[in-house]
């Protein structure tokens, strides 16, 4: 047992590093999910419901946001999925720097442990995941925990970024050209390019609030020449691109699943890659001011970035046409759980993506900014659509990863519960926001008209919770007791399905060689 444990802890195998990332991120997801249910329980009725201390509630909010984004989505996508899929998809025996890879997962785990200290320290951070000063500087909450969690996880992803860019550049199978890469590989390296450019900016921002709070500097103190908006600009200069760090891989994994279960070529592959993914990398850094539409930034930049923000619809639209187009003349098999999650994803993403358009329009933001509308919008587009994609991806790779099958019936019940729950909860939330319900409220005694809607939301969130718990239970049960899985249960053409199940250390006895006519989505046998 001890030997097995140390094998896992000191592993340099990309697949095991990936699984460690998965375990850590699912742990963060579970705790952040419990926080979500606590938040919903508190808001079900007017007045104090399960806690009479608003600070306790604010700590839940903080932890839910920070852990879901920094502890679950980014690590599950650019940690677990990148590690597990990319070397297999490009026909490499491992990543370029396996020990650096192991180091990055250790840093990530340290970050998670540090984040969990929130529940142990006497002064937990209550600064929301955005940590805006001056509040994060003047609060008695522990801002340093936030700063150092972000720094550790950020450093982990910088290391991973260098590692994967090198791996994809130099370790593709013999003969594999750039246009023969899976969409997921493209999307993930694009996400890492974004991480490498923007993570240092976030690091700067969170370090400066710690400096202000603990070392007495005055970066954000206006009485001594600082400026409060500097932080928000730095923070969103990273954190909006971070949305694409999450979006690109999760969209691309859905693309993989749809192509496999349609046995079809990705619709207009090159445009999806160069126009869609490339376009998003280009515009990702020019839109952050839409998070500051009501802060009193100069009018010209608010109007200017309204235009750039709306233009995001162009690359995203091209990717969506690629995704829906892949269904066209496909051979669609809807009977499998990953494909059901993928189809559910399309509808959630449509609602979430399109409700981003009113958010992009500065003058409409004057009303809906910082209300439940924006919270409902990003839960649709990023939180739940992203989680659906992660769950779809785990179900999809599950047979390869564990060598066993999960239970299809339980998988589908789980999907439908969370799909229905999501729409119940977050559609209602958007309606509330439009009617004027502000976000981050512990109590809404002055807005009693929202009580019935809040109850509906709680019911929805419970459905989501049950659905996700069923999925997690299904994985654990399947990994131990499931039937033995064949090497290629979905009949995919992509390289990751050509290895043994589960893949041995080094992936292939002899590394594959790629024919110029080969393509991961070519099911017809000719180009």
């Amino acid at each position, binding site marked *: 047992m001890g030997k097995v444990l140390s094998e896992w802890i000191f592993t340099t195998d990309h697949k095991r590093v990936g699984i460690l990332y998965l375990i850590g991120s699912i742990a963060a997801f579970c705790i952040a999910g419990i926080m979500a249910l606590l938040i919903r329980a508190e808001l079900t009725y007017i007045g104090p419901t399960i806690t009479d201390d608003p600070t306790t509630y604010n700590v839940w909010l903080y932890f839910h946001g920070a852990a879901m984004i920094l502890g679950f989505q980014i690590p599950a996508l650019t940690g677990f999925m990148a590690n597990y899929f990319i070397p297999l998809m490009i026909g490499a025996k491992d990543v370029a720097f396996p020990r650096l890879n192991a180091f990055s997962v250790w840093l990530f785990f340290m970050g998670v442990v540090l984040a969990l200290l929130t529940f142990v320290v006497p002064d937990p951070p209550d600064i929301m995941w955005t940590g805006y000063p001056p*509040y994060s500087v003047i609060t008695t909450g522990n801002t340093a925990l936030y700063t150092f969690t972000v720094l550790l996880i950020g450093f982990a992803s910088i290391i991973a970024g260098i590692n994967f860019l090198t791996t994809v550049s130099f370790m593709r199978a013999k003969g594999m050209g750039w246009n023969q890469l899976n969409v997921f590989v493209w999307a993930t390296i694009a996400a890492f390019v974004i991480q490498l450019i923007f993570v240092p900016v976030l690091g700067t921002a969170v370090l400066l609030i710690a400096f202000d709070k603990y070392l007495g500097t005055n970066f954000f103190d206006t009485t001594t020449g600082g400026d409060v908006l500097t932080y928000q600009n730095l923070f969103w200069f990273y954190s909006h691109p971070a949305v694409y760090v999450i979006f690109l891989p999760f969209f691309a994994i859905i693309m993989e699943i749809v192509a496999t279960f349609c046995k079809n070529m990705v619709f207009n592959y090159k445009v999806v890659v160069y126009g869609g993914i490339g376009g998003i990398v280009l515009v990702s850094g020019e839109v952050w001011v839409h998070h500051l539409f009501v802060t009193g930034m100069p009018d010209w930049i608010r109007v200017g970035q309204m235009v750039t923000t709306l233009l995001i619809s162009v690359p995203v639209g091209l990717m969506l046409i690629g995704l829906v187009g892949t269904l*066209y003349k496909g051979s669609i098999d809807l009977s499998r759980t990953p494909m059901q999650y993928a189809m559910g994803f399309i509808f959630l993403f449509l609602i979430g993506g399109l409700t981003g358009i009113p958010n992009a329009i500065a003058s409409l933001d004057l009303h809906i900014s910082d209300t439940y509308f924006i919270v409902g919008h990003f839960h649709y587009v990023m939180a739940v659509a992203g989680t659906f994609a992660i769950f779809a991806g785990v179900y999809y790779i599950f047979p390869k990863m564990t060598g066993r099958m999960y239970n299809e019936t339980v998988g589908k019940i789980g999907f439908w519960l969370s799909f229905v729950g999501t729409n119940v909860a977050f559609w209602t939330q958007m309606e509330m926001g439009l009617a004027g319900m*502000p976000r981050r409220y512990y109590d809404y005694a002055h807005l009693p008209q929202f009580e019935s809607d809040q109850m509906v939301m709680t019911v929805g969130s419970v459905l989501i919770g049950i659905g996700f718990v069923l999925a997690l239970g299904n994985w654990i049960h399947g990994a131990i007791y499931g039937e033995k899985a064949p090497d290629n249960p979905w009949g995919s053409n992509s390289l990751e399905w050509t290895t043994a199940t589960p893949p041995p250390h080094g992936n292939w006895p002899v590394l594959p060689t790629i024919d110029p006519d080969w393509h991961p989505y070519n099911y017809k046998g000719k180009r």
Partner: protein
Amino acid sequence: MCKNDVKKRKDLYPALLCFSLLFLLHSSGVYAFETSLSDTINDPAPGFDELWDTVMLDITIMGVAFAALTLWFMFRYRRKHPDQVGDGPRFSAVQAVGWALIPAFIFMADDFYLAAKGWQLWNKYRDVPADRMEVKLESGMYSWDYTYPNGIQTQNLLRVPAGKPIMLRMTSRDTIHSHFLARYRVKEDSMPGRVTYLWFYPKEEDIGDKDNLVTCTEFCGVMHSYMIGRIEVMVPAEFDQWYSEEESRLSRKKSNATGESMVTVTKKNIEQGS
């Protein structure tokens, strides 16, 4: 070879048809709803509702088109037998670029249209009518403190006359707050070290409305959700009466509060022999 090409192009027809339909539906819908924003009164709140409806129509058409297409494909192209593989189109360079440029132009046309509408409304929100009352707002944990032009101060209650545009010049003494008036569809952050502004147009139908609330929409600490204020819209005459009464009370207070002026008053009285 030639036959093959023709077949390939035929494959595209349904998809092209869907797209042109989408485009037509979209543009016609948008034009049907396009009414120029009224310029007799500068109130941006109705403009918000109007633009909101336009945007909702716009995104509903797009969303329904994509969703319907997805559902139809899911039904039409479901796997009939286990060995079936997909037969999706393989594009020539021209077709591929066309499939990028045409949708890109449709999306961009829509984006610029919405941006233009948004900018038009934005200007209304930012151009404050000259005939206005300017009230200073200082926010703090956890109250809204208003100061009127004549110096009177109120807390968490902003009394305003109906029919007069009200401009708030806002700052904060501690952390960031956001002054949200859901009734008037407007909010703006108030923060230390900067002065921001917003304006709104109280109307007669708002008189006597107890639910015309000010809420804080920027997380500001433990009592964030209790940082509630209220806008009380008054009949202009009643407002003027309240305003001047408060003013005179304020000046009485001032003269009472200053020792010197008390002395001056007493001296005068003595000199006049009363």
